[in-house]
């Protein structure tokens, strides 16, 4: 028996998330967004959250709904501004939410560093740009790099396709995106899945997130989103 908990409800899955937590939220736009977990987090009530996610919400659902509920103090993301990011846009213009824009590759690599025990790394992205301000520069072999630090989460909320009862995960197509990286970077990783298959039901060669990174699993009925803007 592995100690990964397979739970019946999303409410159990998000239990214990404290006010002020840093929460890594999977998804690239709507693909891979853990809608059911976010809805449960809204019911759960944790506030003053720092959210790390690629975007800052679309339409009125998922992350956008969490923002609209006033639970988020700060967003670290690469791309807040989208055609349907009106919830974030309004909060930002009213000064009700902090924003840190992080290049997408840095967002991913900084979370990987947190999961991999790397203390910091020199990265070629953003050299000479406004996003380099305040960062240490070092020239290595004639090329300039910026020093980047890990981004660690208290919790990760992600969506995967299938899990086995130990917590091994596989994803579907480009909905994989940030899930596997966030799973490694958080103290507690919570995963909504389309299906829990029996032990032995996943090919060990094709497991994307090994069980060691997964704490709580909850199967959800359907992934009730379509393409962006269509819901």
């Amino acid at each position, binding site marked *: 028996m592995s100690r990964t908990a397979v739970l019946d409800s999303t409410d159990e899955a998000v239990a214990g998330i404290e006010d002020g937590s840093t929460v890594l939220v999977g998804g690239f736009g709507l*693909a891979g967004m853990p809608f059911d977990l976010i809805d449960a987090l809204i019911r759960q009530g944790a506030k003053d959250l720092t959210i790390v996610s690629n975007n800052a919400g679309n339409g009125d659902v998922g992350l956008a709904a969490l923002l609209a509920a006033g639970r988020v103090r700060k967003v670290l993301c690469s*791309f*807040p501004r989208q055609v349907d990011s009106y919830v974030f846009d309004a909060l930002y213009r009213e000064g009700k939410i902090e924003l840190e*824009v992080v290049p997408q*590759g840095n967002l991913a690599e900084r979370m990987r560093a947190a999961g991999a025990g790397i203390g910091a790394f020199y990265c070629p992205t*953003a050299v000479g740009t406004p996003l380099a301000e305040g960062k240490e520069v070092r020239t290595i072999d004639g090329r300039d790099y910026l020093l980047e630090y890990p981004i660690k989460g208290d919790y990760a909320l992600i969506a995967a396709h299938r899990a086995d009862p130990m917590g091994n995960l596989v994803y579907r197509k480009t*909905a*994989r995106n940030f899930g*596997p*990286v966030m799973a490694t970077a958080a103290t507690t990783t919570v995963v909504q899945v389309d299906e829990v298959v029996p032990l032995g039901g996943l090919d060990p060669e094709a497991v994307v997130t090994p069980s060691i990174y997964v704490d709580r699993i909850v199967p959800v009925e359907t992934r009730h989103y379509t393409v962006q803007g269509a819901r």
Partner: protein
Amino acid sequence: MTTDTTAATRSASAGEAPITVDHPLSMDEVAAVIARDIPAGAFVNLGIGQPTKIADHLPEELGVVLHTENGMLGMGPKAEGAQIDPDLTNAGKVPVTELPGAAYFHHADSFAMMRGGHLDVCVLGAYQVSAHGDLANWHTGKPGDIPAVGGAMDLAIGAKDVYVMMTLFTKSGAPKLVRQCSYPLTGIGCVSRVYTEVATFDLRPHGVHVLETYGITLNELRSRLDVELL
């Protein structure tokens, strides 16, 4: 994989004449010009928006493999009707399809691929490009505008060749190929080529080379741009 460096552009290897037309190109025609210059078998990222049109001009037998930053190689055309799968989109969140030989990977692996210099070409839009290859395409810098960088800075420094696809002038007529960018930078010295509706420019260490013009003379170009043209 490595692309065929002996044929830097397909037009050269296939002996096609450069496009020299007497009218400015539509952006779709610009897309075709760029497609012509992408080497066979190249691994290419087409960013979001306008440059994604280039894919329509890449014949299948060319074997160009498209990368999308959200974790895929072997991206196919836009999905239509029943093909639409919310779990399969491009970097612009547009539903796309999968070609045989595709591979999925997570975001850290996808950006390691970019930033490690493995992509042969990426094509991006721009607000401005400087004569020495600086790129400004992520932020207007206007007060009140919400900054959003996405993968632009990673692509700018990662691909072996960064092409820009843009109109050469703003709606008010100001040139976008400039001596120094006034917009916030995305990357420095990273652009190698600029494709516009009136001319294609090769940015070389010693200056800006005009490769082709469309409906404009070189003298006219010189008079409207504040950069030295070779």
